């Protein structure tokens, strides 16, 4: 309950700051350049159906991209982090490819996959892949060796070491990288959706309305923020369930 209250207070403060910024910007320019939060929110209600359609399109693309990058990057990152031979060969590749702005590849992806969802999902998955790969690799390198020794001395196979130690030990850091990926993923998804001339998704919705109906465009931005918030909450819930051991404290015997 306290958590919900703090969320509400934070959001109210944000809306207030937005309203003040809107009053200031519009006052200086003597025109409605930055719509206030209440006008934008009323557009959310008025355009609920259109927003819902675009929200759903963006949401499934983002979730799919996160899942694809998670499924591919996590095992690869853990293996590179734990197997020195793989690390020697793969690390230079990561160092060369990680800094490339994936957005530079967007036109190439449009040529390969067309302007549909495949390009947008690939674009976001590509960006998040490196984020999760680098985190998983780093986390796997920093595992307490006593945990590894402990299961090896109990007769664990290499696969069992990964399952019983490497994966659970690195899961909190992997989930943190997923959290970072949500913000990054929304930004990349916006770029990908606005680059396609036509199509669904909050990016193209915002782009369509930004010049002539800014209140609607800001309604789209609110929807993107809600998408991010919902995904953050989902990752928090997953972490609470999957990493329960992180949230316990020493307590006396009954």
């Amino acid at each position, binding site marked *: 309950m306290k958590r919900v209250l703090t969320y509400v207070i934070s959001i109210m403060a944000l809306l207030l700051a937005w309203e003040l910024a809107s009053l200031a910007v519009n006052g200086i320019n003597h025109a409605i350049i930055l719509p206030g939060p209440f006008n934008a929110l009323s557009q959310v209600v008025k355009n609920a159906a259109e927003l819902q359609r675009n929200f759903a399109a963006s949401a499934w693309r983002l979730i799919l991209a996160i899942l694809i990058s998670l499924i591919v990057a996590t095992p690869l990152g853990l293996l590179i982090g734990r197997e020195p031979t793989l690390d020697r060969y793969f690390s230079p590749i990561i160092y060369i490819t990680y800094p490339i702005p994936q957005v530079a590849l967007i036109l190439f992806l449009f040529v390969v996959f067309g302007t549909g969802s495949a390009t947008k999902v690939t674009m976001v998955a590509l960006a998040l892949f490196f984020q999760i790969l680098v985190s998983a690799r780093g986390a796997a390198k920093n595992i307490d060796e006593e945990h590894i020794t402990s299961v090896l001395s109990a007769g664990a196979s290499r696969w069992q070491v990964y399952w019983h130690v490497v994966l659970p030990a690195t899961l909190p850091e992997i989930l943190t990288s997923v959290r970072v990926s949500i913000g990054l993923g929304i930004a990349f998804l916006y770029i990908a959706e606005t680059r396609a001339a036509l199509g669904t998704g909050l990016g193209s919705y915002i782009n369509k309305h930004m010049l002539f109906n800014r209140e609607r465009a800001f309604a789209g931005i609110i929807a993107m923020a809600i998408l991010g918030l919902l995904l953050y909450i989902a990752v928090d819930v997953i972490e609470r369930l999957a990493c329960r*051991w992180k949230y316990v404290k*020493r307590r006396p015997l009954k």
Partner: protein
Amino acid sequence: MIDVDAVTIDYGQGEQTVRAVEDVSFRLDKGKSLALIGPSGCGKTSLLFALSGLLQPRSGKITLDGEEVTNPRRDVALILQNAGLLPWKTVWQNANLSLLLNGDFPQQNAAEVLAHLGLDNVMKRFPAELSEGMKRRVGIARALSTSPSVLLMDEPLASLDTLTREKIQDLFLNLWHEHGFSMILVTHNIEEAAFLGQRIIVFTDRPARISAIVENPQMGSLDYREDPVFQGVMSQLREALEA
């Protein structure tokens, strides 16, 4: 019987080779206890890991009941410095880890050991919810869950307060009498070596070589700490370490 024959352990290769253990030989009869004592970082843990099958000596041979130790064995249990508990597994899962890894369903044995160690009411808890003393007991429960014939311990009581350490030492002694396993304890604590080792091998600084062997046949009772012989053994150990 455990037979350690001219064992040398190296780390690294070529010019970067570091010698951890050099030409160490000893024997330990079934059901006996041995303490390995030496300066911190001298290489005694490497020797213990070789005994558990986790690493292979550069030269020499370790055999258990005539069979060469090349891999971790089910009848050899290892207790690590911080009990080696996995923070993401509950007490029950930690205590049963050896049995779960080897494909066996947790047996009555583990439940009995947990109850015997007073852990039956914390089985669903995670290690972070336990005191340091209880964590060590969970480590002991895990080691005993497979009914080992050899118990290897690497500084199992380091970083515990004096009273808790003595309590767990008493527990080790009682379990050794009850279960009849052979016990090899690595420690840098003179008092612990004198309380738990029937024979105590003193090592030099790295690379670990045997510098003295102190026999301690009168150990084995809980009130041995009050015995003047115990004090005498401690003095001998202190002299051997200083030499």
